[in-house]
């Protein structure tokens, strides 16, 4: 089974927690590390975080469920955040969202059967000069058209396949 985090990363976090006056400030960093490694944050990830930082699981859970870029459910390998903010909305953002749903055959919030893509709406990506835009993982794409989207999806599929 896939590990939540590598042992050496866990050790590094434990060590760092000892040096901090307020270890709790690392909660998002730790959750994100687990997410980067494991793909999302399962219950065990919340428990591990609590254990490393010396807080209760509920205190971690409160944070984990507060932010929309911490995934408490499995997501695809490439989470696609579709900006639904005002510039994107006035420049065809809804059409982009509809097109992606059609292209991938899933609705917002769902993951494709091959486990590659999850579609998630997001607030402003700060790419307003290049609206409409999306962010795949941490990569920003702007000035999108249906052809542009097809290209992006095509490249990601190729990357995953190869």
């Amino acid at each position, binding site marked *: 089974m896939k590990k939540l985090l590598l042992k050496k990363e866990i050790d590094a976090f434990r060590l760092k927690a000892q040096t901090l*006056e*307020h270890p*709790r*400030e*690392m*909660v*998002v*960093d730790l*959750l*994100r590390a687990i997410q980067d490694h494991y793909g999302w944050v399962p219950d065990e990830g919340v428990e591990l975080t609590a254990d490393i*930082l010396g*807080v209760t699981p509920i*205190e971690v859970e*409160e*944070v984990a469920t*507060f*932010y*929309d*870029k*911490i995934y408490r459910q499995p997501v695809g390998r490439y989470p696609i*955040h579709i900006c639904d*903010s*005002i*510039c994107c*909305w*006035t420049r065809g953002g809804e059409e982009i969202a509809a097109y992606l749903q059609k292209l991938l055959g899933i609705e917002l919030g769902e993951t494709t059967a091959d486990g590659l893509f999850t579609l998630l709406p*997001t*607030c*402003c*990506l*700060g*790419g*307003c*000069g*290049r*609206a409409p*835009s999306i*962010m795949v993982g*941490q990569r*920003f*794409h*702007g*000035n999108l058209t249906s052809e542009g989207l097809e290209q992006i999806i095509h490249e990601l599929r190729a990357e995953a396949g190869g």
Partner: protein
Amino acid sequence: MSRIKSPAELEAFRKEILAQRDPDKPCITLCSGSACNATGSGKVAAALELEIEKQGVTTEVVSRRTGCHGFCEQGPIVVIYPQGICYLKVQPEDIAEIISETIKKQKIVERLLYVDPNSGERATLEEDIPFYKNQKRLVLGSNRKIDPRSLEDYLAVEGYQALTKVLFEMTPEQVVGEVKDAKLRGRGGAGFPSGLKWDFARKAPGDQKYVVVNCDEGDPGAYMDRSVMEGNPFAVLEGLMIGAYAIGANEGYIYVRQEYPLAVANLTVAIEKAEEYGLLGKDILGSGFDFTIKVHRGAGAFICGEETSLLNSLEGKAGEPNARPPFPAIRGLWTKPTNINNVETWANIPMIINKGAAFFSAIGTESSKGTKIFSLVGKVNNTGLVEVPMGASLRDIIFKIGGGVPGDKKFKAVQTGGPSGGCLPEGLLDTKVDFDELSQAGAMMGSGGMIVMDEDTCLVDIARYFLAFLSDESCGKCTPCREGIRQMLKILTNMTKGLAKEGDIDLLFELAEATKGSSMCALGKTAPNPVLSTLKHFREEYEAHINEKRCPSLSCKALIDFYIDPEKCKGCGACFRKCPAEAIEGGKKRIHVIVQDKCTKCGGCHEACPAAFDAVNILSGVPVPEATPEEARAIG
């Protein structure tokens, strides 16, 4: 290079850097902000490197990848110094020619120049392009000259001069005094006088204090903090350290939203470099002042931009707000006095120290000093980041710098101040950008989003949009905000669907009042603003939606119908071919008819109908005429 231990060593190092730089040597800079990266700036950079090598000019030119230049619409942007020749929308294929022509033969590559859409004239230099010409780039200016990851570049543009001055020539009180005299007001939205805030934190009892940079920038339509942080992180660091010295803090936090990975990356490199050279850490420049910085990444929550939420988030709690007072200056991070400012606010500090309060306060209006960066977006020709002196008029920004509204469309409104702001109509375009004037007009300075809307934009729908955003982003902790926004949103959604009732406007006012008056933080307190400002300036649009079930902008889908005028239809079939819903009955030389039940109102037929025929009408507030009977559809 090892640690720099004194101001003298710093100056010697600066001299050494400048001595190695020949100001007359051609320098090719390439914009590599997030927006340009997304349009292939990386590939252009690779081509540039390759071509410089290939054409054998390695010793004759310098190339530099800089932060965002602001003219995002036209990226990737290449500027060649010392002249300032500006090439737009540069592709990897263009690089060979730029080197062989401009660098080797001093010839301009005409096709890459800016062309004025109105006059058709080309502009060779950056400063001749109207978009740049009418700006005053005091904060953003360095972005296009420096590599954000190079400490040397920052030192070459007077970097750390202000910090040296503060540490060795000024007392903390004098620093606070200088910022007070400059009359700098916070750029994060509320416009609170920064010097005063610093003074509170400085005077607050306690040995341990903190300074914080707010780079959460969540306002829809705003991205100037991103560009400053990505493009000039050292300036923010320097400003922060000056603030820390002034209030007596030795630790700082920079809170960056998770959507800005490049900002985090550049900032992290900048911090490492500063540490390496002793410009962070213990006994900075031998002054005895210690300072360390941590970068904290958000995880996606708009409310975390609100200062008390941000501090909770920093502490590893859910990012929910607390009631104020106590203000963070008295009781902030881990209950210690904390001074939190916006990115742009911090970035102004080194300039104020270098050039003096008098220089700064000479720019702007009576109550608002210095410049402000806006992100000019929406239905405007030149979208991008613009920095103007306070007091510039909205009209100048939108028309002189922004080049007006695209197409033949008419300007309708401009929205400033993000979700807490408001929409201003044509009649108020001469309003000046000034904290107080904008508020009086019913909008807000906010963090600097400026969204232009044309005649096709429905302002009821815009108000609905902002409330939908706020309803998503309300943390739910206090009831007036959570419920007030939800109920207003329900009413507005009904309006855009043709389900509004008489009395809804009064109900909106009542809900707005309650939400405004009793919410805990400014998210709720300002949430009704988009509704109130559109009601104030565009009330007739609301009334049309309610009384006539009509959308005057012909934009609310539930209130419009597409109809082919049988008198005008020539039976060309363009609309028939375009319709994705198979909702058009056509046939050769026959009048085309839209089957209303099947129509999805995508507008495709309207676009497809040749302008010469102009047969597809959009109707609102009136019944769709009976369709021409089958037997009467033959044309000619």
